[in-house]
């Protein structure tokens, strides 16, 4: 054996040691001049279910295209599984399953034949196990019964499932799923979520883009938030929401009294709705607050701190709604 080190990438950056995706100052300006991704520094830890969140047009798909070597970055670098993209597509991509911007199928081929074709596209896929792996993938997404049907006769949700099956043709170290639940019925969404959890528990890192906040909240361990091509924040989902304090919610018929007491106790931003009073909780034991309310004769029917949702986090971070930028 000759010295292999020449073919290997250089030593990895210390912070990238255990990361599946690392981008540094990744930037893409499309030929039309549209700056779609702007200086993105993304770090996706191994084994995470990573939610990639942002409104329409914020650059999620563009980032994924760069990670998959489909488009060349204008500047900056992207490493996937420790190797530079798009240079290392041949070694990296066989270990990556991807669903990008919805499924794309050959309408005149059956679902099974579509998978046969995509699997034949991978030169590292063993043709001897092809049939068997395809059957397993079809089974995993619940398409076994419809596998012989022409793909043009598939419903949107069935196409989406077949696209997922294509991503699952081999054991993967990384799954990149661009809005995987698009077009699925609620039952299908649940199935996909449990599939993602199952894959994650096998050790597959899942990179999941979505503009559905609750989807991310339900399955993701980590998340990044994009807006207008820039990264707003990234980190563990718990930390993201924890960065924001929850709101104190008191349910009571005596809203006026409750609001007065809360203000006296130092709560800020008191808002009265029909039978609820919400406020920024003060820096003190909430039990005392509750006692004060009861002492003042407020009939407290509910008392608690509402966990901030990612949507709240998003609005707080971007200072704007979850809208498409012009």
């Amino acid at each position, binding site marked *: 054996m000759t010295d292999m080190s020449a073919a290997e990438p250089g030593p990895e950056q210390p912070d990238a040691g255990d990361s599946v995706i690392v981008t540094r100052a990744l930037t893409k300006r*499309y*030929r039309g001049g549209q700056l779609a991704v702007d200086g993105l520094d993304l770090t996706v830890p191994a084994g995470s279910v990573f939610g990639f969140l942002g409104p329409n047009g914020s650059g999620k798909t563009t980032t994924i*295209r760069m990670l*998959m*070597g*489909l*488009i*060349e970055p204008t500047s900056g670098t992207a490493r996937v599984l420790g190797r530079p993209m798009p240079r290392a*597509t*041949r*070694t990296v*991509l*066989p*270990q*990556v399953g*991807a669903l*990008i*911007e*919805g499924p*794309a*199928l*050959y*309408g*005149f*081929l059956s679902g099974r034949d579509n998978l*046969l*074709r*995509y*699997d*034949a*596209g*991978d*030169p*590292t*896929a*063993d*043709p001897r196990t092809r049939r068997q792996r395809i059957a397993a993938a079809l089974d995993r997404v619940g398409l076994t019964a419809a596998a012989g049907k022409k793909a043009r006769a598939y419903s949107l949700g069935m196409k989406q499932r077949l*696209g997922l099956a*294509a991503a699952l043709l*081999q*054991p*993967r*170290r990384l799954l990149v799923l661009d809005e995987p639940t698009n077009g699925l019925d609620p039952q299908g969404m649940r199935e996909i979520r449990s599939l993602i959890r199952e894959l994650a528990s*096998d*050790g597959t890192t899942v990179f999941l883009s979505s503009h559905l906040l609750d989807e991310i909240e339900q399955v993701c361990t980590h998340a990044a938030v994009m807006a207008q091509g820039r990264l707003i924040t990234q980190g563990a989902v718990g930390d993201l929401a924890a960065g924001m304090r929850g709101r104190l919610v008191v349910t009571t018929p005596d809203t006026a009294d409750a609001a007065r007491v809360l203000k006296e106790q130092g709560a800020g931003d008191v808002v009265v709705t029909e039978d609820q009073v919400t406020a920024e909780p003060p820096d003190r034991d909430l039990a005392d607050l509750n006692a004060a309310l009861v002492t003042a004769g407020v009939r407290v029917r509910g008392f608690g701190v509402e966990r901030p949702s990612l949507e709240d986090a998003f609005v707080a971070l971007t200072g704007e709604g979850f809208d498409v930028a012009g």
Partner: protein
Amino acid sequence: MSQAELTRPASVLWTFGLLRNELRTTLRRWRTLALLGVLAAVPVLVGVAVKIETGDGGSVGGGGGEGPAFISQITNNGLFLVFTALAATLPFFLPMAIGVVAGDAIAGEANAGTLRYLLVAPAGRTRLLLTKYATTMAFCLLATLVVAVSALTVGALLFPLGDLTTISGTQISFTEGLGRALLIALIVAASLTGVAALGLFVSTLTNSGIAAMATTVGLLITIQILDQIPQLDALQPYFFSHYWLSFADLMRDPIYWDDLVKNLGLQALYAGVFGSAAWARFTAKDITA
């Protein structure tokens, strides 16, 4: 699952799985079958027309200069229908069929979005392009053989078969005639490799399969027209279709090779130039469709 298990080495043979799949997929498109059907019908039409016209014992194209090459000989020997049919389809029907298949090769996949999934499979851009070109060449051969076999069948059914007279006036046996017919079919198929490369290059320029097909066929027609304009005779030797009909020289005795070699050289030049251009374009292209 260990990393070693996932980065297993590929067998060299596995790499051809894509080519096998591509050939099968191409043949399963109804469009391919329709093109082959049209090509198979041409010899039938020519054969039946000749049969009807000569039903009274006369001969077609008596002057010898009329109609496609060899047509006047068909009534004596059905094998000549093969040469006539190839001469009749080579200027337009055959290259049009190739233009459709080649033009659609990359652009059609881009249009359907399947290109991105082939590339993340990962099919590899160079491998995919080579696969597409090989498939287009295989289609050239298949299309030519469909014309030849259809012509041979119709010729055998409608006309007598036997020894034949070459353009030079010598006699050759029927078996040798069959051999020449096969050689001619191979040369005709090879004559189409230039159009195939041109079509493939056009296919890398756009994300619309229809646009690529139309452009390729449009270029084909334009070149055919320009090839008829005497003022352009300085340029004409560089038109990919200029020496196409030289395949008739295979029916001389001895075979006259000059134009045949020029034709093959020109096809190789086109394949080299446009193949490289297609590769340069496709390997550097942003795939956003």
